[in-house]
């Protein structure tokens, strides 16, 4: 059994990032304690096709009541791979996002923008043998938040992935190219600079479907399995 490569802290944001205020009382401050990999770390929850409903990956239809959700229809697709570019098949991806007006259906979102009766904003799918996934949704709007004066989150979609083990668990966000809010966003900017581009999907005319929806590609790279034998 081989352990997974460690989390690369040149890629992941630190726990305390002063410009993102909520980290101040929530980010752990003591050093993490590394432990050798055992079965507890190299195993993880398994959710396959049986856990995904037919419309789960189509956010334009999975909670429609009496029509289509408002907004710009988009296709979001990509591959889940590991650091060695090996595809990660049969991995569950869960996403959630604001509607086109920048409003989350969540009870705690008090932003004065309309809810959309035909849009929930949650979806899920399973990667295929090439690690590929595909969602149909609407482009989420920007929305204000209380971090600082006149603070707005850039357009984004939240992604949650399991990968092959508990160690490969990842929750991240996909942003959109050219968004002027990115250079003002403390969450995006809390990420090490060299790794930020990996959070931005790219527009693709090849994925775009004529007369129907714009296409974006967002690949996700999970921890890979190294060649070093496990010690415990």
């Amino acid at each position: 059994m081989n352990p997974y490569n460690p989390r690369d802290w040149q890629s992941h944001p630190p726990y305390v990032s002063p410009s993102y205020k909520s980290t101040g009382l929530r980010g752990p401050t003591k050093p993490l304690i590394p432990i050798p990999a055992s079965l507890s770390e190299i195993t993880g929850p398994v959710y396959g096709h049986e856990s995904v409903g037919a419309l789960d990956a189509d956010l334009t239809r999975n909670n429609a009541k009496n029509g289509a959700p408002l907004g710009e229809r988009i296709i979001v697709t990509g591959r889940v791979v590991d650091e060695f570019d090996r595809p990660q098949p049969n991995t569950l991806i869960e996403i959630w996002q604001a509607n086109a007006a920048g409003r989350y259906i969540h009870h705690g979102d008090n932003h004065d923008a309309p809810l959309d009766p035909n849009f929930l904003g949650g979806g899920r799918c399973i990667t295929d043998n090439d690690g590929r996934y595909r969602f149909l949704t609407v482009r989420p709007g920007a929305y204000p938040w209380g971090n600082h004066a006149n603070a707005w989150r850039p357009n984004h979609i939240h992604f949650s992935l399991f990968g092959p083990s508990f160690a490969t668990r990842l929750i991240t966000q996909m942003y959109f190219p050219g968004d002027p809010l990115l250079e003002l966003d403390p969450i995006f900017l809390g990420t090490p600079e060299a790794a930020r581009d990996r959070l931005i999907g790219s527009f693709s005319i090849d994925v775009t479907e004529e007369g129907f929806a714009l296409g974006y590609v967002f690949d996700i790279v999970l921890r890979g399995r190294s060649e070093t034998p496990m010690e415990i």
Partner: protein
Amino acid sequence: MARGQTPSQTIGPYFAYGLTAHQYGYPFSQIAGGDLVAGRPGVQGERVQIVGQVLDGAGAPVDDAMIEIWQADASGRYAHAADTRNANASFKGFGRMGTGTDPDQRFIFRTIKPGSVDGRQAPHVNLCVFARGLLTHAYTRLYFSDEGEANAADPVLNLIPEARRPTLIARRQDSEGDPVYRFDIRLQGNDETVFLEI
């Protein structure tokens, strides 16, 4: 390495309808909840509850955290292909719960007490903490207070300074129903929970 890891980003405050919709009453299914044994009569082992709060650096309970647990069955086997020992087929071993529906901001898991995974490690539950304000998730482990001898020999606990080990020990509280193991997670402070690099 051919490709760099995709950076983690915070789960934010609004994950509930995407990841824990049923728990929070949104019209969407969820893949896993806080009860790992309901409707699974084939699950073997002692029924227990794992209950706790997530506390911030000011000691205030966090009401928008999400906890995930991953554990072995009562014989210490995981329901995963990397564990070839044919785990108890009824038991999946994964639970997920947000802290926003309980009046005291607790997470509550109904599960079974796991067995020792390999005869060396004490029975434990693997935990992952997500929250608004946590840019990257935090891993920890829960051990059981009534496993003193096994805990003393556990190779992971022995990597941790002795003074900090109690942060990983859930305290057994006997109750009318299934025994409750109390496990509070302190994100900061003198008694900050030990978080692990796995």
